[in-house]
């Protein structure tokens, strides 16, 4: 089974900042988007159980190499990195266009995507890709089970109060949730083995895309303003012994009419 995992390199959570154009600054240290690591874990477990290989696909700046190396050390077979300065400032449509072009050049039975990203939170790339490629779209998966004959895939889709069981023919695109299971640590031996794994780098030209069809110039939306959240009042830290501290916390809450 060939599983393709979409992996986005995002700024290390907690260090996000905006660049001069009010876009997420990606020149900082990047890590794999947390949700993407959950679907990577599911992909690794499936190929370990049923055989096959896991290919990573990432669109992003040179800093994406670090999270890709980590994902290879976790056990992925190879990585494809689409990097091109002309993509900077792409909107969701532009990003989906690049990923679609890359997916058309790759072989897979299943495409896995995380629920959303810590720096974008649009959650639209996966369904957009399914629509553009004509793939069945299975969302909010908490369990993924390919049929033994390799023709269909069954998932549990989370819904309020329970789950639905869905089936679709392969190839299909599955958007997974954190219920799939905690991602593993890269094994230390895996880190060394990852040095010899293939990381293919593609440009827009390699994908046959016109640079003018993506990037800031082709963006369908633009950011007018970016506002920080309203400043919260300073935290009060109580460091007394528990018996004193409890009384102080009660007083504080009572003073604010919260109890």
């Amino acid at each position, binding site marked *: 089974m060939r599983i393709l995992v979409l992996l986005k390199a995002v700024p290390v959570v907690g260090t996000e900042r905006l660049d001069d154009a009010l876009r997420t600054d990606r020149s900082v240290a990047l890590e794999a988007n947390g949700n993407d690591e959950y679907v990577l874990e599911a992909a690794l477990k499936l190929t370990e159980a049923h055989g096959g290989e896991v290919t990573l696909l990432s669109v992003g700046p040179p800093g994406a190499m*670090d999270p890709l*190396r*980590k994902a290879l*050390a976790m056990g992925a077979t190879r990585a494809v990195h689409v990097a091109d300065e002309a993509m900077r400032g792409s909107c969701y449509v532009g990003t989906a266009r690049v990923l679609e072009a890359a997916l058309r050049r790759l072989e897979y039975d299943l495409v896995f995507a995380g629920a959303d990203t810590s720096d974008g939170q649009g959650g639209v790339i996966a369904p957009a890709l399914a629509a553009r490629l004509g793939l069945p779209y299975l969302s909010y998966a908490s369990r993924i089970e390919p049929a033994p004959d390799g023709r269909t895939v069954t998932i549990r889709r989370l819904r309020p109060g329970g789950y639905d069981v869905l089936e679709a023919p392969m190839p299909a695109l599955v958007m997974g949730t954190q219920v799939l299971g905690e991602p593993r*640590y*890269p*094994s*230390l*031996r*895996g*880190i*060394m083995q*990852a*040095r010899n794994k293939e990381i293919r780098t593609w440009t827009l030209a390699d994908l046959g895309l016109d640079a003018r069809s993506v990037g800031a110039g082709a963006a369908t939306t633009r950011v007018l303003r970016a506002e920080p959240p309203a400043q919260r009042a300073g935290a009060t*830290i109580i*460091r007394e012994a528990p018996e004193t501290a409890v009384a102080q916390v009660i007083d504080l809450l009572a003073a604010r009419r919260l109890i």
Partner: protein
Amino acid sequence: MTIVSPVAGGLADEERLLQETVRDFARREVAPGVGERDETEQFDRVLFTKMGELGLTAVPFSEEVGGAGFGYRAWTLVMEEMGYADMAMAVALSVHVLSQSPVIRWGTQEQKERWLPEMLTGTCLGAFALTEPHAGSDAAALRLRATPAGSPVAPTYHLQGSKVWITNAPDADRYLVFATVDPAAGPRGITAFLVERGTPGFRFGRKERKLGIRSSSACELLFEGAEVPAANRLGEEGQGYRIALSALAEGRISIAAACTGLAQAALDAAARYLTERTAFGRPLAEQQGLRFMLAEMAQKVAIARAMTRAAAEAKDRGESIGEASSLAKWTASDAAMAVTTDAVQLFGGYGYSREFPVERMMRDAKGAQIYEGTNQIHRLIVADQVLKRVTGESQH
């Protein structure tokens, strides 16, 4: 969370990923229970098994013998992260690695195949048994006696005597034990043996009750005619002292790295506290006198890290590490002691309380000035090397 030091650069990609992975593991799996383990003085075997599954027990060994294939500089990154999260667990890991590296260097093919797989995966826990009641710094004076026995077809040695302060011993499965086949021969009589837990005539004595690293277990070993197959002799008779010294030189770099991590943890804790705590209407961090203290703590951590890295890089280049490893261990353990003590001072009353971690860090630091060669022994080693460069011969 570890605050990345500005001098942490210059690492290979795989070393950075190793560092990040171990930091993540140490923060999520090791740090949370550190206070409780210290209070209960319990070694956490389940946690050690997890460390083995991750591959921590195989880091500095070549892929040919089943290791992860990293160099010793990479190993110092692991030990620094472990020391940051829990000095006691760092010491347990360091000793485990110390107990198997001589098997890789001096073992026969048969011994390597029999001994290493479970050690490299952390399925078995190792201990390194050199120290005796009357032979600490003067290790060559050890008295544990190994007497040839058995039959010509099944030769053995009888071990008679005792060891003390053997880290990991109460929980270990395999022991690298140093004994003498000829007490009159001094260092030239010392011989190394691989001894398994459960060997008849080999049992545990009193558990050591320590000031710090309390969740790293240590105890006395009692050998009462324990019979060890000659096939378990590591190297030749009389080679044991060389085996011990070469392992200890590596172990010192490892402990130096753990001390650097411990010192960094105390520095980070103190820096955070100075920004949170106010006195006289402003944060402590605005008091110049305290800023000076913090800066001097940071200076000591940076020196410890630099000297540790220098020693590890010398080992990776295949150079002699006697002097460099002594300098690193002495410097880093003194740095850990000074920085943790200053951290307690900066925390004031809270620093003296067992409710806050810097008190444990200060206790954990002290031992490192004593074990793996006291810092006074390291001064002798360094002085000997300095004089040797002048006179061309050893003065000691």
